[in-house]
């Protein structure tokens, strides 16, 4: 601090004053925040840092892996036996369905071809494992162990054996981030499987979801199963998503408050299937284009004049 306008002699070089440095760094940080939140153009920087930090991150997994290995060592035989029994029963149960599915798919294909319908994109998937939940407490994201190297791309849907759990939002060379359905920023178009009512399901945090923008008298009951409608071109139609758990019809609001619970193991860890990217839907009719392509009266008049 200077005394009456005299700064101390510069014996020791210290660089710019702390306040100046603070203002500089805070400005840079806030710029980064705004750029990332609003324009989402910082993915290349993120990719670079993530790749550089990967070996360190791998080392950080060691204690968790070791703990898991120790636990598995003591309980391996009993768990494996129990799991084997369960899986055998399950395989027998599903064998019947599986045997018929190949036949049904063939038949379905032929009939669709007969009807000259656009062939549905075949559901192909890649098995991945959830390694850990991201530490960020403000969002619901998990990291899976497949990335760019395995051909994962942002936008692919992620399902487990019960239903949809989320969508790939960011890809790194060897890992990928999956935004869970319960994330506040995640929305998915669904329909009620009982009556085909279409709606948008959005995450509400804390392991639940909310069916938005349905009128207070919409025909939804607790226990209804919601499946993907496939209108967005991301999710295949017909995948189970959630069950309606609670409906709050308050006439003072335009919309009903409908709380849903996910069917898939959204908040659990384990194996998941990353579905292949769907073929793009036919482009939607563009209002402006069609309006322009129609010969208007004014154009015709001008042509005649020329």
């Amino acid at each position, binding site marked *: 601090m200077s005394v009456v306008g005299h700064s101390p002699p510069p014996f020791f070089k210290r660089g710019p004053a702390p306040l100046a*440095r603070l203002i500089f760094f805070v400005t840079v940080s806030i710029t980064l925040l705004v750029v990332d939140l609003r324009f989402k153009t910082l993915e290349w920087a993120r990719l670079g840092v993530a790749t550089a930090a990967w070996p360190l991150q791998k080392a950080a*997994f060691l204690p968790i892996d070791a703990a898991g290995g120790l636990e598995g060592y003591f309980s391996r035989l009993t768990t494996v036996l129990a799991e084997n029994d369960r899986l055998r029963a399950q395989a027998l149960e599903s064998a019947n369905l599986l045997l018929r599915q190949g036949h049904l798919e063939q038949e379905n294909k032929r009939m669709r071809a007969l009807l000259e319908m656009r062939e549905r994109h075949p559901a192909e998937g890649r098995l991945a494992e959830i390694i850990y939940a*991201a530490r960020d407490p403000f969002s619901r994201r998990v990291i899976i162990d497949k990335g760019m190297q395995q051909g994962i791309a942002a936008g692919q849907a992620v399902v487990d054996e019960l239903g949809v759990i989320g969508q790939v939002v960011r890809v790194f060379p060897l890992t990928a981030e999956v935004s869970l359905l319960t994330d506040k920023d995640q929305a998915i178009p669904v329909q009620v499987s009982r009556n085909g009512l279409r709606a948008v399901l959005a995450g509400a945090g804390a392991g639940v979801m909310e069916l938005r923008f349905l009128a207070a008298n919409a025909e939804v009951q607790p226990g209804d199963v919601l499946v993907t409608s496939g209108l967005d071109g991301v999710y295949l139609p017909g995948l189970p998503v959630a069950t309606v758990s609670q409906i709050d019809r308050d006439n003072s609001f335009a919309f009903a408050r409908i709380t849903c619970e996910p069917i898939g193991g959204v908040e659990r860890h384990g194996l998941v299937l990353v579905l292949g990217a769907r073929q793009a839907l036919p482009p939607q009719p563009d209002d402006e284009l069609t309006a322009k392509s129609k010969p208007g009266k004014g154009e015709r008049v001008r042509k005649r004049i020329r």
Partner: protein
Amino acid sequence: MAGSQASHASRRILQPVKHWFIVLTLFIGLLLNMIPFGHLPGVPDWIALVLAFWCVHQPLRVGMGAAFIFGLAMDVIDAAVMGQHALAYVLLAFAAGGLSRRILWFPLSQQAIHILPLFLGTQLVMMAARMIGGAEFPGLWWFLSSFTATLLWHPVTYILLTPQFMPVEKDSERPI
């Protein structure tokens, strides 16, 4: 405790700190932060703790520049928004650097009480940055990690000052 070695009240003269040791401890903090605990409450933010420690003890060597760089690294590792940790850590480094002149005259327990508001402020800044961007409230349990970090101030001080406690000349007769 009058003879507390990690404060100015101590009559002990510490050895000068080694630059590589500071860098190493910061990287160890980063490594500890990468251990995937998920949403377990009460896991301290190791980088914030180590940064605050060095900003208090070596304000001329560790400051806002280091805080900014490690903040960016944390943003990527946490899958957070770019700049969230950077902003919070820069403010933490500034505040800790400002405190460094006086807080070292206190015994360690009182130092920790001085540091607690800084950690809470860091978390509040992060929360403000994210909630303006439309994120959900993480719950009050999230703030528990500041308190665990404060409890760790005492052991961390001794661990990080160990190389400086070493005697200059090695004496084979001396036990430590």
